[in-house]
């Protein structure tokens, strides 16, 4: 394999690994902050126990999200030097802003939160986790504005053999970036909500600390209900933006070969990319795809054949990932609704089947998130910056295949090891359940 293929594999692997930890951080930071706020307001010790228990899991997960993020920043230069040279003028800015406004805040206040239990007042302590939560979400905003620019380049001109920024506000207000941000953020919230529900379900099945885990489950279910519905709605707008800005990606997502008007949505499709057609197209709902794409049932959608073969993304991966993600999205709304109703009626303990389903559903939102990134990044191919720069022109000239082999194998082994350790620790602390003895913290924080 050449340095290009290896670098693509490495970027995909390290980004996918990074994105196992980041989305849980996005959602769990908010839930933990909310729990601590409830504790500060009500002085109910159960909320303090919840803060400590879910906060501990948050921290184990957070550590890996942070350290694997450095890899992402380094790789733009290490493996994608031609890309960095070509677009650094406009792409570097959001990354530098991310570090300045978000990473500092997140990393400084996480230290205060972990070590500050007895050193600052309760309110300041709760404030510090809110600052962490805001910072992680802000960091997502800037990196997704950067990614949004790769999907829909705006605010630049080609000059001096590169893309130079001419309109910073266009970058900051890029609708593609904001949709990507909202969609990604909400997917992180759903991941966190299902994580909290799943682990709570485990303990409820064991009839362990039921009061604690019923309350946790209910909080997770409420959060899940809101966020999974919003996620789906934003996803719909996001797909419409893709139809407008990235016609090749949209056609691949739907495996649409011919340009048509008033396109139906076929529930069953089996693509046959080799022959540029679909082997099976069945159970069509008239005009639905046109409606989803342009919010107009009669709209024309461009098919893949409209574009030269060299400009089309891999259809099979894009199509399957999108269908899988969307199906999971519908499932999340259903499960959230059932979970919400059952926990509202206080019938959780008697619904052991639901509890079991929710326990085994923990990985599902993660899978949906990974599939979403496959749609976003594979669907953008062969471009690294849509319509502006091809991925094949972006790779570093100075690196050799053997160098990237070594780093790819190194990352695989190293990340594999870290992943195993992290899952081991998460499982260990999840199973252990909350600590009963919080006397030292409560006593000492009163002295402040």
């Amino acid at each position, binding site marked *: 394999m050449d340095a290009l293929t290896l670098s693509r594999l490495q970027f995909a692997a390290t980004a996918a690994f990074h994105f196992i930890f980041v989305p849980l951080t996005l959602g769990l930071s908010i839930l933990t902050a909310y729990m601590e706020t409830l504790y500060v307001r009500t002085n109910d010790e159960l909320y303090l126990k919840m803060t400590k228990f879910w906060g501990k899991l948050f921290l184990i997960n957070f550590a890996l999200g942070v350290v694997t993020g450095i890899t992402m920043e380094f790789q733009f230069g290490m493996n994608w030097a031609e890309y960095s040279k070509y677009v650094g003028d406009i792409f570097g800015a959001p990354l530098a802003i991310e570090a300045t406004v978000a990473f500092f805040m997140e990393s*400084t206040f996480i230290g205060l939160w972990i*070590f500050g239990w007895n050193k600052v007042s309760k309110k300041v302590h709760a404030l510090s986790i809110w600052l962490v939560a805001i910072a992680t979400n802000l960091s997502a905003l800037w990196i997704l504005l950067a990614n949004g620019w790769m999907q829909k380049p705006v605010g630049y001109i080609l000059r001096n053999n590169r893309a130079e920024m001419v309109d910073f506000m266009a970058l900051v207000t890029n609708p593609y970036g904001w949709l990507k941000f909202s969609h990604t953020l909400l997917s992180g919230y759903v991941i966190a909500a299902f994580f909290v529900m799943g682990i709570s379900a485990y303990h409820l099945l064991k009839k362990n600390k039921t009061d604690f885990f019923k309350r946790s489950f209910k909080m997770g279910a409420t959060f899940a209900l809101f966020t999974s519905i919003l996620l789906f709605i934003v996803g719909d707008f996001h797909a419409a933006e893709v139809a407008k800005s990235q016609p090749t990606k949209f056609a691949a997502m739907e495996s649409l070969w011919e340009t048509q008007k008033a396109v139906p949505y076929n529930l069953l499709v089996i693509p046959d990319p080799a022959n540029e057609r679909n082997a099976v197209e069945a159970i069509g709902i008239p005009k639905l795809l046109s409606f989803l794409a342009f919010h107009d049932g009669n709209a024309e959608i461009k098919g893949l054949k409209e574009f030269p073969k060299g400009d089309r993304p891999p259809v099979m991966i894009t199509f399957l990932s999108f269908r899988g993600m969307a199906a999971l999205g519908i499932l999340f709304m259903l499960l959230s609704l059932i979970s919400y109703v059952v926990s509202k009626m206080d019938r959780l303990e008697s619904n052991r089947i639901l509890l079991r389903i929710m326990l085994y559903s923990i990985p599902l939102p993660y899978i949906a998130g990974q599939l979403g990134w496959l749609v976003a990044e594979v669907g953008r191919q062969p471009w690294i910056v849509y319509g502006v720069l091809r991925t094949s022109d972006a790779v570093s000239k100075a690196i050799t295949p053997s160098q990237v082999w070594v780093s790819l194998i190194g990352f695989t082994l190293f990340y594999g090891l870290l992943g195993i350790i992290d899952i081991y620790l998460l499982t260990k602390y999840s199973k252990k359940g909350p600590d009963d003895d919080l006397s030292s913290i409560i006593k000492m924080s009163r002295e402040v």
Partner: protein
Amino acid sequence: MEFQIIWFVLWGTLWAVYFMLDGFDFGVGILHSFLAKNDAEKRVIINTVGPVWDGNEVWLITAGGATFAAFPTTYALMFSYLYSALLIILFALIFRGVAFEFRGKVDSDSWKKGWDIAIFLGSFVPALLFGVAFGNIFQGLPMDAEGYHGTLFTLLNPYGLLTGILFVLLFVVHGALWLSVKTNGGISTRASMIANKTWYALLIVAVLFLIYTAFATNLYANYLQSILWFVVPVIAVLALLGIKLFASKGQHLKAFYSSCLTIVMVTFTGVIGLYPNLIPSSIDPKYSLTIFNSSSSIYTLKIMTVVALLFVPVVIAYQIWVYRIFRHKLTVDGVMKDEEAY
């Protein structure tokens, strides 16, 4: 033109602050196994940097991000030319970060020993390699229009290695002084002793470095053109002597501030010598990456200047605030009682 200079100064400052802050984390990480007599003491040592190391490391990420935004060509070429060296630094930093977080999470001696090794390697290796990298940048890289004509081993030349050793010794002294300030009793006494003894080695290497620099690099050319700049290396040397002066009197906090000043001034000494280069070419100056031929457009630099002016002071303010909250000394009793500690 002036915006490139602003960003050159900011670039140097980001590195200087990064080395000043993460420098003592590195020193603490290198020393922790050797200084501690038992696990409780190890925990005390690790917990002295517990609340702050993560925030310190962000200065590196920001230095990287600033290089990307302000000097994208330098960012692209430096990171791809130094691919293997950066990969090792990256792995080491990841290792250190998770080691701090995970070490105390399982109650087993072999688990902790494993992470102790990770903390040592994750501190020693980046300290050495950052020195090697900057030593090579000071000398210039063998690069021309065709690219880079070197490997990982090209970097391990005598001057690069000497700079690496200089960095390690600077950070060991820095970390030992931090520990003598932040702890009491046995740990503090031992740390102070190590700082005092290592200082002699540091002095010797620093003198060798200053002399060797005249032969291996072009750094002094700028100083000869405008003698006034010599004030920076002179402050560096005075601060280095100050470390010993204060440390031998047991004034650890003042000694620590002196080593902060030493690290900042050593970094600036190199940066001033580099100007206007970011990475000189050792083949021919016409291939050097300068702040002018590798910078972003003026528009981008202006935007980034506004961002930096708005946010960097805020960052400095809250970091100082958090440092003040954790200004107390750590004791074995306190750490053992604190469930949240590392």
